[in-house]
């Protein structure tokens, strides 16, 4: 057992030795070591979060043909720290008539709902986090706490625009939770477990090759859940000035902002875990846990990059279009996909690997094609109806 093969266990044993030699009892020492481990992980996450700000600004500026931060430190790397200091020394205002307690709890809950997600993220074969047997549902549970924090923030600010922003945001977030839940059923069906590590271990073939449609729907639902463009209706600048966090300033606003970025990164990670093999990459993860961590962080970063790519490419969608898109297209397709996958899984389970993969991909393609065909026909009819109306109007003139 050396440090490079299982760093956490070595460090934990070493700390346990120290604490017990101080006369602490075994359980207390164990809890304290676990506490320090969690503290370390979350501190690292906050540091990653700071750099996510830099990555975001740098990538955006490249998309928009600019250079981005480049003055403070090499490549502007110190810029996010300057941002943090600016946020910290800003005045913390509380609007008149705000519900002070709820107003102050909301940003804390918002950040917490993101940080606790990392409890179930397996970083390496020897660092599983908490390997809950209901890991998949834990994501949704944490998401509901985030939803609640948005309602609290919007309602307690005593501002019409923040209340409307919060309500719009929550209506969208909860709506898109349904296709997300449905697509999370698909890795669960393939694996026969809701545990994150079991899902990763089950991916001898990445699930994205078994069910590309599910991966796509999950990504779309995740983007909406994150409240990022093109689904960022909570912060329609022209209509709602900034959405639910309009009355927040200083570090409280910083918590919402940092929470949003870390949330996007985390969902990049979940996307990688569910559909792209998590920390696995052709056996490389067995060489060293550090390599495994590098693999999953890289995959999460790729997911984050794709989310940014969508954000800065696609324009914002109106709320009615967005909800119609979810309830009339995404949700039915997701549920049909679940039914087809369950059926194919039962039929092809004993048929051998290649037949199974081919059948799954084919069924995915058929579902995607059929749903797009239906949309095409319906929209054609709608176009004809509108054209007909136009002709009637013209005939009148």
């Amino acid at each position, binding site marked *: 057992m050396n440090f490079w093969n299982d760093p956490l266990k070595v460090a934990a044993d070493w700390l346990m030795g120290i604490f017990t030699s101080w006369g602490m009892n075994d359980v207390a020492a164990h809890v304290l070591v676990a506490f320090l481990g*969690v503290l370390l992980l979350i501190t690292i996450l906050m540091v990653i979060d700071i750099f996510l700000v830099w990555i975001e600004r740098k990538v955006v500026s490249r998309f928009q043909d600019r250079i981005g931060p480049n003055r403070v430190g090499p490549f502007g790397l110190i810029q996010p720290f300057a941002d943090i200091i600016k946020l910290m020394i800003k005045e913390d205002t509380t609007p008149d008539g705000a519900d002070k307690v709820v107003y102050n709890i909301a940003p804390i809950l918002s950040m917490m709902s993101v940080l606790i997600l990392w409890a179930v993220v397996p970083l390496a074969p020897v660092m599983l986090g908490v390997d809950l047997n209901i890991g998949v549902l834990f994501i949704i549970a944490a998401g509901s706490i985030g939803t609640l924090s948005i309602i609290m923030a919007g309602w307690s600010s005593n501002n019409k625009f923040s209340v409307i922003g919060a309500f719009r945001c929550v209506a969208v977030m909860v709506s898109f939770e349904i296709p997300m839940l449905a697509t999370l059923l698909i890795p669960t069906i393939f694996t026969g477990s809701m545990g994150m590590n079991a899902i990763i271990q089950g991916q001898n073939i990445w699930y994205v090759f078994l069910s590309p449609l599910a991966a796509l729907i999950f990504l779309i639902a995740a983007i909406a859940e994150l409240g990022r463009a093109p689904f960022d209706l909570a912060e329609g600048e022209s209509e709602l000035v900034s959405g639910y966090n309009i009355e927040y300033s200083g570090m409280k606003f910083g918590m919402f902002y940092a929470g949003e970025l870390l949330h996007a990164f985390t969902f990049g990670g979940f996307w990688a875990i569910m559909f792209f093999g998590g920390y696995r990459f052709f056996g490389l993860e067995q060489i060293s846990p550090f390599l495994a961590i590098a693999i999953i962080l890289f995959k999460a970063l790729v997911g984050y990059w794709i989310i940014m790519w969508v954000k800065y490419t696609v324009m914002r969608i109106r709320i009615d279009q967005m909800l119609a898109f979810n309830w009339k297209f995404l949700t039915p397709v997701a549920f049909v996909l679940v039914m087809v996958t369950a059926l194919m899984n039962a039929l092809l389970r004993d048929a051998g690997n290649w037949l199974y993969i081919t059948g799954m991909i084919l069924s995915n393609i058929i579902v995607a094609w059929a749903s797009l065909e239906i949309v095409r026909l319906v929209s054609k009819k709608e176009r004809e109806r509108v054209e007909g109306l136009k002709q009637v109007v013209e005939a009148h003139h």
Partner: protein
Amino acid sequence: MNEWLYVGLFFIVGLIIPIGAIAMGFMLGPKKPNPIKQSTYECGIEPVGEGWVQFKAQYYIFALVFLVFDVETVFLFPWAVKLGQLGMFAVIEGIVFILILIAGLVYTWRKGMLEWV
């Protein structure tokens, strides 16, 4: 039990870190409140009326449909976990369950309740 203790630690640390950050911001920042600074923001004009508006019922409809779908989809998870070891009967059962669910969506759709008007 034991594994939930670690989750509990994540909750505790997840609370401590933002509280610490906000407290730090509170200590470092200036505190010079005045009535104009503290009035709520309304695009630069004086706030009109109170910070409460009548909501349209549409928000409730989406929350309602969401509630029903949420509850039912969550119940499908134990089914999905066990599906690999069960026969065709369980698959049909799950499909019937989902079809009943979709019937509700179709009803809401046909009543025109999914329109944002």
